[in-house]
């Protein structure tokens, strides 16, 4: 299957799911002529039509010569994504300084840095800089961490 055909099928799926969700929008007594479902339904129809056109048209040479993603590259991209997801899951528990240091060390290592003292040092010093900037200077309430909160609560 060509790249455009695969994209066409994915988009047709998106249009269908979006249409079904649009039909499920509750009606309102305040509704105008169009209503809250009106334009979303039109968008779904528009996307479905464009997806079908993408499926039936002849693929251009330009599209065929698109970027090639090798399994190794895909693994790196997925790894980066997993590190981000792990950060979101762990930050409420371990707190911002620890989680961001983990993200720095994990990303540096996963992107080709050696897991040595330098990577760890860069991660820890980077985390301290970011903590100073975001928490101390900008005053953002990044998560302290459930363990530290518990510890402080007991003290």
């Amino acid at each position, binding site marked *: 299957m060509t*790249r*455009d055909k695969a994209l066409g099928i994915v988009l047709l799926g*998106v249009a269908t799911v*979006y249409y079904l*969700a*649009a039909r499920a*929008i*509750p009606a*309102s007594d*305040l*509704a*105008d*002529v*169009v*209503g*809250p479902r*009106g*334009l979303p339904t039109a*968008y*779904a129809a528009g*996307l479905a039509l*464009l*997806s079908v056109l*993408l499926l039936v*048209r002849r693929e*251009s040479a*330009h*599209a065929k010569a*698109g970027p090639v993603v*090798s399994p190794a*590259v*895909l693994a*790196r*991209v997925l*790894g*980066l*994504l997993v590190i*981000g*997801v792990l*950060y*979101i899951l762990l930050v409420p528990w371990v707190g*911002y300084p620890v989680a*961001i240091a983990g*993200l720095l*060390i994990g*990303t*540096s*290592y*996963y*992107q*080709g*840095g050696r897991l040595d003292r330098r990577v760890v040092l*860069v991660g820890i010093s*980077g*985390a301290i800089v970011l903590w100073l900037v*975001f928490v101390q200077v*900008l005053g*953002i309430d*990044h*998560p302290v961490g459930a363990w530290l909160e518990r510890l402080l609560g007991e003290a």
Partner: protein
Amino acid sequence: MTDGFWSIVPAAFGGVAWGILGGALPGISPSITMALLLPFTFGLDAAVAVVLLASTYVGAEYGGSIPAILIRTPGTNAAAATVVDGHMMKLQGKAGEALGISLYSGFVGGLFGLTVLVLLTEPLSGVALAFTPAAYFALGILGLSVIASLSRESLLKALIAGVLGLMIASIGTDPVTGTSRFTFGSPELLGGIPTIIVMVGVFAIAELFEQSGAPGWAQATERPRIRIPSPAMWKRLAVPQLIGSVIGTFEGIIPGGGGTVSSFLAYNEARRWSRHKEEFGHGSPEGVAAPEAANNTVACTALIPMLSLGIPSSNSAAVLLGGFLMHGLIPGPMLFVQHGDVVSSLYAGLLAANVAMVIVGYLMMGPCIWLVGRPKPYLMAFIYALVVSGVFSIEASLFHVGAALAFGVVGYGMRYFQVPVLPMVLGVVLGFMVESNYRRALVLSSGDYTTFVSNPVSASLLALALVFVVGSLVRRSRSKEEASV
């Protein structure tokens, strides 16, 4: 001015410094440099925030020429035309002179662009005072059609991207009835997906994903000092700088033009009008001056359609528009009436940014070379950490961090499938304007759909949108025929 001239000047200097650093990193475009900064501007005064972002754009356009000259790798797409003669000058031992020409030509282009911006923006926005809801709806459709039809990728894919953007914009509370749409019971989605989250995802995170699979860039082997061009050189550079500035003006105003197209056009025109044509490609100072003047002109003139009509003509202008919207500033004629102080601050800030570029450009040379020389894994890790920390800062929401990651995946997928990102971003930005004005127009006309064609402004804008789409189809089919001959 909102916060006084002295709060604008540090913002201009800071923005330029950040822009030069970001622009100097290969793969980090001006829009990404601005998107990285966007979350930090949330708590700032509106005028300071927009000056910071606009100055970043100015700085990034110059920063891109540093690796282009020193390591033959353009830091930004717009600096690609500078590689040809800039790096050749470096090989001839004239790296300092090439960097000086780039810096001063950027300064000249920036001032030219700023003058045009100040002269054209307000009169153009005055036109929009005659707009009814039907006309605003048509303007939104025109903006999407122009961006889609001028996209380098397939028109079909650009239209798909535009519709996807409109679909994303429909998430949240319905603008007329207050009904929840596509929220699936999640309170975080009630307010919709903030434009800034979409931008950080599709520009910054998608670029990180892209860079994770790309090889590392070359390292600079020398640390040249920037040299001010001599009076004789100034005289020689006047024509290519003028050519670059004029081309940059037109390309900045036209949606879809941008710095890259303008710098290549300026390079070609400078060669055509030069008395030293034979030097082009072999280290011509004019070959550096013209593209650098052009892309810095664009950094100002790209703001003309954005400020006057709310239609961004490039990725960077779209990010700046995101900064405006984040502070409750709606571009268009009312911006000049209700927030004239912010507009004045922006003009003053851009003037300060262009002056700052010359000063900061000298000071930042060492840090830029140091930064480009850092191991890529560490740089990527720090940018990633900066993105997740910055996105959280907007509303202290981990949900937003997850949404930005999701849009990073979407942006990466769009690059793989060669779907342009700008029409989608524009769809997200214009979605509310399109829907609310469409429905308001129908309420005012008691449900009469002919209101969109009976109103002369609305009818003209819709006809223009049709002309752009049909014209694009004809142009593409002609170029296909020529290619097959």
